[in-house]
């Protein structure tokens, strides 16, 4: 009963740890009883598609687990955007993103403080920077979850019992060659990329969102502007893949090849950036910066150097992993044909 075990495991992953063993044990008993009833009715053991049908009727693991949560909170602006089922996950993602944003901002401000900037000057710019970051994070996360929730409500049966961890949470679903690219994944990617393009544009015109109060005397080096067009073109390519996979979810290899292409482009871009420092320069030419400001410029560029180095390492690792998965998928297909 590997199919049932995977299904119960997927349900358990969405349940609070204090209750999950007990709930899963009871659900397991119920499903076994259903299977036994059906077997008694047919007078033979059930075939895998028949067990799949029972699990499908039982519901998507997320839906089943969600009913055990007694949290009725939701997000609604007139119309419900995110219902009680997804709300706990929405809050978790929002908290995670805001936590990361806070850590990054605190880091930037700690650097400025270490460089000798006046605390009163630092604190005056903080609310504005923090407000814009919150607004962007909130819009992105809410938009994606609202789309997932809408799809969930419309098509609760559009999932594959053989892959119970996939379907509604593409971001945390099992990677690799699936039989189909879930449409929800394509929609989520499209939304995320549109928001990314808007964010990119906003950051270009309002660098203080990243640089904070140092934007008064620092600016991004011209290399970032040179990369704007290639990055936008790559984003369009990723959007085209998501749009095509939305119409043709069975074109799984298109996603695999696009990932490889994006991976190569990512490694090239990060390596190019790493070699072209400094990444932040003085607004009026390096010579005009002295004392605390020169110190800030040096620390910010050091931070960029190490961040880009990490980005090169991570993107190279991801590229190798995607290549390995593609090769493994090709071997599997060749073996199954033979």
């Amino acid at each position: 009963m590997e199919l049932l075990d995977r299904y119960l495991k997927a349900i358990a992953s969405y349940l609070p740890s204090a209750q999950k063993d007990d709930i899963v044990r009871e659900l397991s008993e119920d499903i076994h009883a259903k299977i036994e009833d059906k077997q008694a009715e047919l007078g033979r053991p059930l075939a895998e598609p028949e067990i799949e049908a029972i699990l499908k009727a039982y519901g998507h693991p997320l839906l089943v687990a969600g009913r055990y949560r007694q949290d009725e909170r939701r997000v609604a602006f007139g119309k419900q955007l995110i219902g009680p089922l997804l709300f706990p996950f929405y809050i978790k993602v929002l908290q995670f993103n805001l936590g990361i944003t806070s850590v990054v901002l605190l880091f930037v401000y700690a650097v400025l403080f270490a460089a000798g900037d006046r605390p009163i000057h630092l604190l005056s710019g903080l609310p504005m920077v923090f407000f814009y970051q919150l607004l962007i994070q909130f819009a992105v996360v809410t938009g994606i979850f609202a789309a997932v929730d809408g799809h969930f409500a419309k098509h609760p049966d559009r999932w594959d019992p053989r892959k119970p961890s996939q379907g509604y949470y593409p971001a945390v679903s099992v990677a690799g060659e699936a039989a189909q690219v879930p449409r929800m994944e394509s929609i989520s990617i499209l939304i995320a990329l549109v928001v990314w393009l808007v964010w990119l544009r906003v950051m270009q015109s309002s660098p203080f969102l990243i640089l904070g109060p140092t934007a008064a005397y620092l600016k991004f080096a011209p290399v970032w502007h040179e990369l704007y067009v290639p990055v936008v073109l790559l984003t369009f390519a990723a959007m085209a893949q998501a749009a095509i996979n939305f119409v043709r979810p069975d074109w799984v290899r298109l996603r695999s090849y696009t990932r490889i292409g994006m991976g190569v482009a990512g490694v090239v871009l990060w390596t190019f950036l790493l070699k072209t420092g400094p990444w932040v320069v003085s607004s009026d030419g390096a010579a005009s910066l002295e004392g605390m400001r020169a110190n800030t410029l040096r620390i910010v560029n050091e931070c960029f150097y190490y961040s880009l180095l990490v980005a090169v390492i991570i993107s190279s690792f991801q590229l190798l992993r995607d290549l390995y998965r593609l090769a493994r998928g090709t071997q599997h297909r060749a073996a199954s044909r033979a």
Partner: protein
Amino acid sequence: MPIDSNLFDNLRLELRRGSLVLAVLAQLRTEQYGYTLRKALADHGMAVDEGTLYPLLRRLESQGLLVSEWREEDKRNKRFYVLSADGKAILKQLLAEWKTIDSSLNGIVKG
């Protein structure tokens, strides 16, 4: 304005939700496990899916209206539920309330 096609379903669901608690409590005057309870309810015309029933049983137990225990039957471990002392008292009160509502509604509907 055209009537939303889901309107009836939603109202029906609301109507049944309150009645379901009463039906479950009444059915659990005798000990049963989830699967047989669901079958018994369906046999009485109160079909309920497992996704609704099991969380409801858990909630009623956490409210102290049910007690449960894991026990082996037919070589399988099953969780048996039965009304607690508080559950019996609440059921009595709810049934009295139900009868009042029923007679009031009958009066209203008949005009």
